[in-house]
């Protein structure tokens, strides 16, 4: 085995057709002086030639077996794509079947909860103080409910 690791590397690149022409000169110069690398080169060439000796013809029975399997696959009905689930949240990733009973219970809980926390417009209305002033005039009473409202009441006929 050659002690020059770099040259062995160049030899590998050369047999793979990956060595630049500028570096090929360096390799050939080394090969002319290194017996170990020449032997390795011969080994690699012999191996490559040997790999070309075999033929790999696929037996017709194998072709038939493959297409028979594919034919069976094609005939097997596939489940139709679930278009409904795709429209759901997260592209249908989250979908579980629930019973009608549990759905109704969930609805009731939601309604009760919604009513419980619903804001009371009266309770939450801003408080405002009113004052009422009654003024008796000739033909009746005049109520001034401040601010902004005045009610005139006719004097009751006796």
């Amino acid at each position, binding site marked *: *085995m050659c002690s020059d690791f770099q040259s*062995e*590397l160049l030899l*590998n690149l050369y047999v*793979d057709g*990956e060595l630049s022409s500028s570096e090929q000169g360096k390799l050939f110069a080394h090969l002319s002086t290194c017996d170990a690398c020449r*032997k*390795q080169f*011969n*080994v*690699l060439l*012999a*191996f*490559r030639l*040997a*790999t070309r*000796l*075999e033929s*790999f*013809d*696929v*037996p017709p029975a*194998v*072709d038939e*077996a*493959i*297409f028979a*399997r*594919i034919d069976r*696959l*094609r005939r097997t009905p596939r489940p139709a794509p679930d278009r409904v689930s795709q429209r759901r949240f997260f592209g249908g990733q989250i979908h579980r079947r629930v019973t009608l009973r549990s759905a109704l219970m969930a609805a009731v809980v939601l309604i009760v909860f919604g009513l419980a926390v619903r804001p009371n417009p009266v309770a939450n209305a801003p408080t405002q103080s009113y004052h009422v002033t009654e003024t008796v005039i000739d033909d009746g009473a005049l109520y001034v409910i401040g601010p902004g409202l005045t009610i005139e009441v006719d004097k009751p006929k006796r």
Partner: protein
Amino acid sequence: MLHSDHLLIEAFQQGDEFAYVALYNRYKGPVYAFCAKMVLDREVAQDVMQETFIRVYENRQRLLKAGSFKSWLFTIARNQCLNTLRRANRHVKFDETISGAAVPDVETPFGRLMKAEQVALVNRFLNELSPEYREVLVLREYQNLSYEEIAAVTRNTVSSVKSRLFKARRKLGQFLQPWIDPTDEDQKVDIKKYEPDSQSQSERRRVLDTPKQ
């Protein structure tokens, strides 16, 4: 008329069964060769190849880039081969029926061996390689894949591929040199050292003389 892989893949993905047949006919030989050299048994290789093409058919929509079909196909074949080897949980026993001939005598130079003997010797060497070295050597030498393509198939980096190829070839040199130049006195000394299965020459001859079962 020959169509490019790209056109065939697109047609196949759109449901054209004839495109699949064209792809199958184009790649069945290379895939079979790859599987045969990985599992070192032609019958097993036929099963592995069958499984590979079935998976290609089933998973055609998963191939996003039609341009990478070859790498994708060999990746599937490689995974099937590794699964087969893993299931066997051992190196696949060398199958003499692959070559139809026994391993030759070391006194005969490699170049003068019968074709079947050369093939037998190559198979014997591949059988001694671990799958991680075997796969890069087979993809490079039998399939003529580039470093980048091998890296894609084996899910590795290009530098790792180069490194493994380098080491595999070193082992190849150690294994094959005794047969390349049997007259080399220095090499003769090394024969026992580099004997593939550490058997002595006499032991190996005894094994070879044993009739096949």
